[in-house]
């Protein structure tokens, strides 16, 4: 398997707190890569650095062989990383379809001139954006809710809408930040099916998750963060046996 993303020696400090220290990891094309760790271990910080929301203090990220400019989020998206949020961040007052259509922004181009003149290119592009948005809504099972405002969707639907919106940017890597947080068992099962479907369709997924069972069942490989450092990276079965990992989780079992 070829390498899709390589993060080298990522460091991030907030005042006196070293949130990330020398974190290096390698994500292979087509795999589901899990990132776990106790609360405050730095998982979300790593995510925010990777997707350009936070500036990093040290390290480099290479995506598909090219160094990633991490300064501006919209460039990270252009380069091919999309994400969802632990606390859902949809455009609440836009419809489900429009949320996904915004996701097409990075992959479309008609500007002011075309929009004002309603040129043929503009109308064709707009129709294509809408078609693709509907396909993605159908993919996550939300097509019949396309016209509902995002804020009026059920919780689990909002999570799936965020995934559809992220997919609309045509990512090479889809980063999911605790997608199962707050979901009941049925919703989690549906989510699991959705993520497995993404892998079948060839997408690479980076998954942060508290639900260890979900991570262990779903991921090809798992990295464990503790106090901002990577303490393990391996297949789930090996990580589960790792002494440092068990210790990090207060000696508790990972089951």
């Amino acid at each position, binding site marked *: 398997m070829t390498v899709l993303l390589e993060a080298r020696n990522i460091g991030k400090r907030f005042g006196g707190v070293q949130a990330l220290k020398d974190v290096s990891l390698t994500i292979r094309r087509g795999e589901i890569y899990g990132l776990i760790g106790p609360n405050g271990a730095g998982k979300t910080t790593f995510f925010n650095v990777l997707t350009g929301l936070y500036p990093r203090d040290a390290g480099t990220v290479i995506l598909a062989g090219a160094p990633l400019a991490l300064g501006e989020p919209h460039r990270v*998206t252009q380069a091919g990383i999309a994400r969802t949020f632990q606390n859902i961040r949809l455009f609440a007052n836009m419809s489900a379809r429009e949320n996904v259509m915004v*996701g*097409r922004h990075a992959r479309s181009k008609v500007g002011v001139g075309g929009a004002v003149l309603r040129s043929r290119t503009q109308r064709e592009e707009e129709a294509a954006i809408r078609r693709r948005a509907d396909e993605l809504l159908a993919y996550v099972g939300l097509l019949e809710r396309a016209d509902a405002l995002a804020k009026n969707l059920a919780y689990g639907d909002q999570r799936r809408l965020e995934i559809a919106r992220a997919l609309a940017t045509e990512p090479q890597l889809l980063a999911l930040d605790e997608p199962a947080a707050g979901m009941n068992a049925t919703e989690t099962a549906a989510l699991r099916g959705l993520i497995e479907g993404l892998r079948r369709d060839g997408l690479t997924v980076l998954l942060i998750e508290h639900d260890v069972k979900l991570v262990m069942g779903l991921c090809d490989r798992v990295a464990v963060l503790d106090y901002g450092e990577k303490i393990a990276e391996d297949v789930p079965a090996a990580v589960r046996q790792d002494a440092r990992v068990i210790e990090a989780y207060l000696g508790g079992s990972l089951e």
Partner: protein
Amino acid sequence: MDIFLQQVANGLTLGSIYALVALGYTLVYGILGMINFAHGEVVMVGALTALAATKFLLSAAFPAPVVFVLAFIFAAVVCMLLGVLIERIAYRPLRNAPRLAPLITAIGVSIILQQLAMMLWGRSYHAVPPLLPETTHQLLGAQITTVQIVIVGVAALTMASLLILVNRTRLGRAMRATAENPGVAALMGVDANRIIALTFLIGSALAALAGVLVSANYGIAHYNMGFMLGLKAFTAAVLGGIGNLAGAVVGGLLLGVIEALGAGYIGDLTGGVLGSQYQDVFAFFVLIGVLVLRPAGLLGEKVAERA
């Protein structure tokens, strides 16, 4: 009854201009959450640059309707550049500052523009040559001038196009997404700086149009004309619900009609003690009334939802 209809017609004319300016306030507020108090001065710059272009083109013997259009285009280009420049040097550095900072800066920009205009054009009132036919039409007992018809028509067309741009196009979606959550919009590939510059560009073009129309309506332009007009348009935006485009249109038209009716009847109602020179008072009664009774405006959402 004649006075009533006449004043409604006058009010709708004035209101169309308020609405155009109010859209500029509301667009910027929607995206940046700030009141761009320099916006009224952009209207003034639009009126005065259009006047300068008009004089030049008339001396070159262009026909009047062509002059009207060309002068507007010139004013629009100047105002768009000005608007983008203001955003770039005065507001962008304060993007993450406390909310009071950009507000005070905006007032500063407004004063600077007024003073610059005074230096360039002097303190006097300039007569604007009539470029549109000065015919009047009878409509249901009201006298309506061609200028009024042009003002209402052009404003309506412009506002309809803006609503389509914002609600039906890729850029409009990006604008609304940025207004709701700039960080997440950026993650969708939206370049927030571009969208904000675009917002100022559109708002300034509308301001230039308003400047041309208002000086055509009154036949006068001067360096201080943007101040009161800006305040009234701001009132209109608040009345409709600031941040809401349809609200700016409704608020502008409503404020224009309230003012015109007030001016028309205030003499009768006070037995001649107060005359129509008190017209401006009504806008501020409306502003105070809205802020006290319905701070979110007629079509506005609860302000708390923004935070």
